[in-house]
């Protein structure tokens, strides 16, 4: 097989999850939500913060989704409001992977006291109710985006550490790892070269779930008014501010709630199909 054919083959392999219905639907929905969040502001007909109409007025030609509690255009606010939740949740998830991933790798590979110390610490963190932990942290540190991101990351990191520790433990007894140890390679080199590439699959399968959870946490905190502050446009904040107007203009709640739901559902579908595709390529069709 030529190098080019090889590259094409491995690319096909990598995107095989798209071949399934769940994978394709999840991918399409995620793309849709990401496009709305990223490109929405360019298409917003009005300012997201200027009141221009009657509060909770129903949809009209001027405002296709009606007006919110302060008489701002709901469509414009929704188009602006996806960036923050996605960026904050994404950043928090990445941070959780960096910290938790490193801890899990080290814990899983070390045969010493390091492992129980790291993992019992993780257990302590996991034992706090997630939302309560973040709210306490924000109350102490003051309301800021940084505190929100840090809180979500701290809640997620021990869960990531657990998954990576198990995966690392499994890999660290394999022959190629022992071969590297017998060559005298350092711990860092063994982790990076031998183990990390082999634990990418469980990470990839887990990422969707983790990201979903971050979105929910960020949205929840924003809903409580402890994350982003008015007049920022944010899907969760929009739901929170306009609770009273549900009967007057239901669109102001339904649309952002629907977008958050679509985002989490698409990530779940995608994560699920990636996990399945990886599982299949591992086991092979016939022994």
């Amino acid at each position: 097989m030529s190098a080019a054919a090889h590259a094409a083959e491995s690319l096909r392999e990598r995107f095989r999850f798209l071949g399934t219905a769940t994978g394709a639907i999840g991918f399409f929905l995620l793309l849709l939500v990401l496009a709305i969040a990223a490109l929405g502001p360019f298409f917003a007909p009005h300012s997201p913060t200027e009141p221009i109409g009657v509060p909770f007025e129903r949809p009209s030609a001027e405002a296709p989704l009606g007006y919110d509690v302060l008489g701002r255009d709901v469509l414009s606010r929704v188009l602006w409001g996806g960036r923050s939740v996605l960026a904050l949740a994404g950043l928090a998830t990445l941070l959780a992977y960096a910290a938790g991933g490193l801890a899990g790798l080290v814990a899983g590979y070390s045969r010493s006291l390091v492992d129980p110390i790291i993992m019992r610490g993780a257990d302590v963190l996991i034992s706090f109710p997630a939302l309560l932990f973040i709210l306490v942290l924000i109350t102490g540190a003051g309301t800021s985006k940084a505190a929100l991101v840090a809180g979500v990351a701290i809640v997620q990191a021990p869960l990531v550490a657990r998954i990576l520790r198990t995966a690392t433990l499994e890999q660290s007894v394999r022959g190629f790892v022992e071969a590297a140890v017998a060559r005298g390679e350092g711990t860092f080199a063994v982790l990076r070269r031998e183990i990390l590439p082999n634990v990418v699959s469980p990470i990839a399968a887990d990422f969707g779930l983790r990201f979903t959870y971050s979105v929910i946490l960020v949205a929840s905190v924003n809903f409580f008014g402890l994350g982003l502050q008015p007049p920022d446009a944010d899907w969760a904040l929009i739901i929170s501010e306009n609770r009273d107007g549900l009967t007057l203009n239901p669109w102001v709640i339904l649309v952002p709630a629907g977008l958050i739901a679509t985002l989490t559902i698409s990530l779940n579908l995608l994560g699920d199909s990636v996990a399945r595709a990886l599982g299949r390529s591992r086991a092979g069709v016939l022994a």
Partner: protein
Amino acid sequence: MTEAAAALAVNGLTVSLAGGEPIVEDVSLAVAPGAVLGLVGESGSGKTTTALALLGFCRPGVRVVAGEITVAGETMSGLGEAAARRLRGRLVSYVPQDPESSLNPALRIRRAIQDMLDEHAAARELSTVEEALESVHLPATGAFAERYPHQLSGGQQQRVTIAVALVCEPPLVVLDEPTTGLDVVTQARILAEIERLRRERSLAMVYVSHDLAVVSQVADRIAVMYAGRIVEEGPTAAVLGEPRHPYTHGLVASIPDYARRRSLRGIPGVAPGPGDRPRGCAFAPRCPLKVERCELELPELEEVGGGRRARCFEWRRTSALVTEARKEARTGAWEAGPLLAVESLSAEHGRGHARVVAAHQVTFTLARGECVALVGESGSGKTTIARAVAGLHAPSSGRILLEDVALASKARKRPKEARRRLQLVFQNPYDSLNPRHRVRDAVSRPAVVLRDLPRRKAEAEVGELLERVRLPARLANRFPDELSGGERQRVAIARALAARPDVLVCDEITSALDVSVQAAVLELLGELRVELGLALLFISHDLGVVAAIADRVLVLEQGVVREEAPVEALLTHSEDEYTRRLLEAAPRLPVRSAAS
């Protein structure tokens, strides 16, 4: 033997993958009551698929597309799952390969046997659980029947699965590699058990195995499968003594036998998988007797005399193929001064109360260019010793010296030069290569780490190293899962050679390979010894393999050296009782006689 009287008759069986690629093609077999048919082949030959089809079963994604299977006059083929299940156990039963995973760990063995009885209670007057246990020489006590599978040894577990298979007294039993994974002494006992049961009950059996030597001990007739088809079939002694098909010949020549030391000949190349089998004879690409016709037409399974059939145009020429006696790599004394010395090495597993002694006061030396073998059953400590030498297992006492310099117990604490000179090849080639690294990365790495070569230079050597282990240089771009087991093990050897070692520690490196591949790997090691002056520390449980390669042998039992002797002396007139027991238990081919 008439069709009606046969315990098993298979006609034109073809089994395919869902995509249409055939796994098994046009297989016809017959087994008389009380006879044992050995179904032999290497991995991917379709023998297990055939065996499962005899039970009216196919693995997911596989289906029977043609053929008729009759067991004791009743048709097994073309039945629905429910109908086939009613016949299974009563008409035909199955003894699986791995008893540990086939017995439900949550069920007591009484339950396992009773389930089978309950399923077919209406069929006839049946024996009890205790009688079933007694029939396979297990203690027929209530207490024993109350045990869980994990409380039994591997040999006992396999006896239980045999008891389950026999309790409903079916006329036919299919045994799928029933002794693979058991040590030789246990294997010999199980084989004797099978032979006794067959005699006493006049059971018909289909014995599936990759191991010709084992099959030759139990089977009356042998059918050899290659790439989904039967290539040769006939009486055991005749097929093995005077093979008519070149593949059978190659297979027989690959089998190590401690009593007849000869150089093993591997079969070059690999067997084609389903979907890429050639139009003509599937063995043609690897065949020494190939003529033009072989690639164009598929030979029929034709009568070749003496109640035998072979699928080869050129079968008359097969007997001209010869095997050679083993060439000694070197004779006479080894160079003065040992290269590697192990002095009173002791090693343990676990700590505290769970501590197990794996090696006790083991002492031996290895000279430059010499091959010393450590032989023993599983649990004898041979692998622990190899790992201690490689710096992967810290010994509890004793020293390891490389040219009179004591080595640290951990590889990382050893000087780079010592790590370079001592290389390890692992047992399982499916595990010892990182699935995410291309062959090029795997093979070039030791040169980068241990010889301080820049990466580019190290990679430039890869092609040469691959050719040295008789692999095409283009494999450098492949990932391990694109290679066969034999190819992977060669890559692992090439990786070890990249460090330019003086000592190669080989830990059961052929035990996961098919015999024809094993022979080829052993052949390669023999050549490398001569070319590079490598010293080998060769770990194996197989005396036949050891006979083919070693100069000197240490026999280990539970971590203690029972005997140390030159290979010839040890194999022919050992004084040690344990060694003799190992030798007697080792399965061997019947001594070649003029079969006619």
